[in-house]
C-alpha cells in the first residue's frame, strides 16, 4: 500500500513535468498548427538558467535562491520562446512544414549550443535540504521534492486555466485556436497572440526545466528533448489544442509509466506508454478531448 502511494505521487510529479512541457506544445499547435520541436530546448534553457542562479548567487539563502531560480527559468524560457517566434517562425507563416522544420533546426542547434557551453554531463542543481527529506503520507515516505513539483504543476495548471478562461488574452487565444481570420476581422492582432503563446509555452517549459533538474537529479542539454517524446504522446492522447486534455493525459501517461516500471518490469514503462498511445489511436484517433475539425 505504502509503495503504491509512493509510486502514485512520484507518477503525479512526473505528470506535472509532462504537463509543463506538453501544454505549451498543445497550445502552440492549436493556435498556429506548428509542432514546436524546440520545446525540449526551452526546457533545457530553463534548467540551465536555474542551475546558474543556484550556482552564482551563493550568498542568497537556499530556499529563496530556489524560488528565484524557478522564476528566472520561466523568464528565460519565455524570452527564448519570444525570440524563436518573432525572429524565426513568424518569418515563414503559411508553410507549416517549413515552420516545423525550422523549430527542428532551432531545437537541434539550441541543444548543441547548450552542450557547447555547459558540456553534456548533467549539472547537479543545489537544492534546499528539505527537498531530499521525506513526508509520510498514508504510510509512504514521499520525497518532498516530488510534492513540490506536483504542487507547482497544479498551481500552474490552474493559473493557465484562469489565464485562458478569465483574461482577454486567453479569450483571444481560445478564439484564435478556432478561427484566427475571424479574430482578425474583429480588429484583434492575432500575431501578438502567437508571440504570447510561444512565450507562455517557453515559460512553462522553462519552469519545467528547473523542476526537472530536481526530479531527474541534474540538468543536461538533451534532457528536454528526451522528455519531449512523452510530451508528444501526452499531446496526442489529450487531443491537440486542449489544455484540460493535456492535463488529464499527462496524469494517465505518467502513472502508466511509473506503475509499469515498478509493478511489471523496470524499463517497461516507456513501452507501456507507447502501447497506451496505440490503444488510444485505435479507439479515438483525435485524442481524449480533441475535436474532429472540419
Amino acid at each position: 500500500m505504502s509503495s503504491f502511494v509512493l509510486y502514485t505521487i512520484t507518477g503525479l510529479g512526473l505528470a506535472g513535468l509532462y504537463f509543463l512541457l506538453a501544454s505549451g506544445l498543445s497550445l502552440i499547435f492549436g493556435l498556429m498548427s506548428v509542432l514546436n520541436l524546440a520545446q525540449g530546448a526551452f526546457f533545457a534553457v530553463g534548467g540551465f538558467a536555474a542551475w546558474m542562479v543556484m550556482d552564482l548567487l551563493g550568498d542568497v539563502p537556499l530556499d529563496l535562491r530556489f524560488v528565484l531560480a524557478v522564476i528566472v527559468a520561466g523568464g528565460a524560457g519565455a524570452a527564448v520562446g519570444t525570440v524563436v517566434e518573432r525572429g524565426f517562425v513568424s518569418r515563414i507563416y503559411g508553410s507549416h512544414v517549413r515552420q516545423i522544420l525550422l523549430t527542428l533546426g532551432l531545437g537541434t542547434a539550441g541543444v548543441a549550443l547548450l552542450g557547447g557551453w555547459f558540456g553534456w554531463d548533467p549539472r547537479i542543481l543545489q537544492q534546499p535540504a528539505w527537498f531530499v527529506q521525506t513526508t509520510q503520507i498514508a504510510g509512504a515516505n514521499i520525497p518532498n521534492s516530488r510534492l513540490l513539483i506536483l504542487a507547482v504543476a497544479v498551481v500552474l495548471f490552474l493559473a493557465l486555466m484562469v489565464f485562458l478562461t478569465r483574461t482577454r488574452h486567453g479569450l483571444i487565444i481560445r478564439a484564435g485556436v478556432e478561427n484566427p481570420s475571424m479574430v482578425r476581422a474583429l480588429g484583434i492582432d492575432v500575431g501578438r497572440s502567437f508571440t504570447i503563446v510561444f512565450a507562455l509555452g517557453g515559460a512553462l517549459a522553462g519552469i519545467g526545466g528547473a523542476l526537472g533538474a530536481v526530479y531527474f537529479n541534474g540538468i543536461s542539454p538533451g534532457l528536454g528533448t528526451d522528455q519531449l517524446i512523452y510530451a508528444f504522446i501526452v499531446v496526442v492522447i489529450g487531443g491537440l489544442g486542449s489544455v484540460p486534455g493535456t492535463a488529464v493525459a499527462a496524469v494517465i501517461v505518467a502513472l502508466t509509466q511509473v506503475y509499469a516500471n515498478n509493478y511489471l518490469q523496470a524499463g517497461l514503462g516507456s513501452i507501456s506508454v507507447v502501447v497506451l498511445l496505440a490503444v488510444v489511436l485505435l479507439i479515438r484517433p483525435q485524442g481524449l478531448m480533441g475535436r474532429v475539425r472540419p
Partner: protein
Amino acid sequence: MTPDAAISVTDLHVWRGEAHILHGVSLTVPRHQVTALMGRNGVGKTTLLLAIMGLLPATGSIRMADTELVGMPTHRVAQRGIGYVPEDREVFGGLTVAENLRLAERPGSDPRYDHVFELFPDLQGRLGQVAGTLSGGQQQMLSLARALLEPRAVLLIDEPTKGLAPIVVEHVVAALQRATEDTTVLLVEQNLWVAEQLATDVIVLDHGTVTYTGGMRSLVDDPALAGRHLGVEVR
C-alpha cells in the same frame, strides 16, 4: 472620390488561389444607407467583402475617407471601424455567447450591450450557452450582434439569411432594419425580397465586374431588368 462615399473601390483585382475572381471592379458605397450587392453565385460578392477586410490579397484601391485599405492588415481595417458579418456566421463555437461578444469589445470603449440585447433579446438569456449549440438563426444573430456591439462606420454583411428557415429570415430582417438605420452598410444578398426590405441602392456584379448600379426600387419594379441582371428570368 465623391464626398458622400463611405468606401470607394477603384480597379480592384482579386484572385483566390489561381482563380481571377474580380476583374477591375470600381464602385462606391454611399454613406448612411444600405446598399445591396447582388449577382449570381460565384461572381465575387463575398470575394469583394473579403478583399475589403484584407482577408484576400488584392491589387487596385479601396479607400475609406483618406485611408487606403489595400495592403492593410485585417485587424487594422477592422480597427478603422469596419464591422464584418461573414457568410457562414463564423461564431466561435467553443466559446460562450458572452465570450463571443466580449471578443468584439474594443479595449477602452463603451460597448452597446443594451442596443444589442434590444435587437436580439434571444441572446440575453443565452449568455452562458456555448455558441456551437445555438440554432442557425441564433448564430446569425450572434454574428450580427458581434458586429453591432461597437459603433461602426461601415458594416459589411454577407448573406445574413442564408440557410435560415423563413420565419427566422423575417425575424433577422426585422432586426436588421432597425439596426442599420443611418448606418453605412454593404449587404451581400442573393434573396431579392430580403434585399428589397433593407437596401436603398443596389449594385449588381457579373463576371467579376459591375453591371448595374441604381435604386433598389427600379430593379424590383422591372422584372425584365431584374431577370437580366440576376440571371433567373430568361423568357
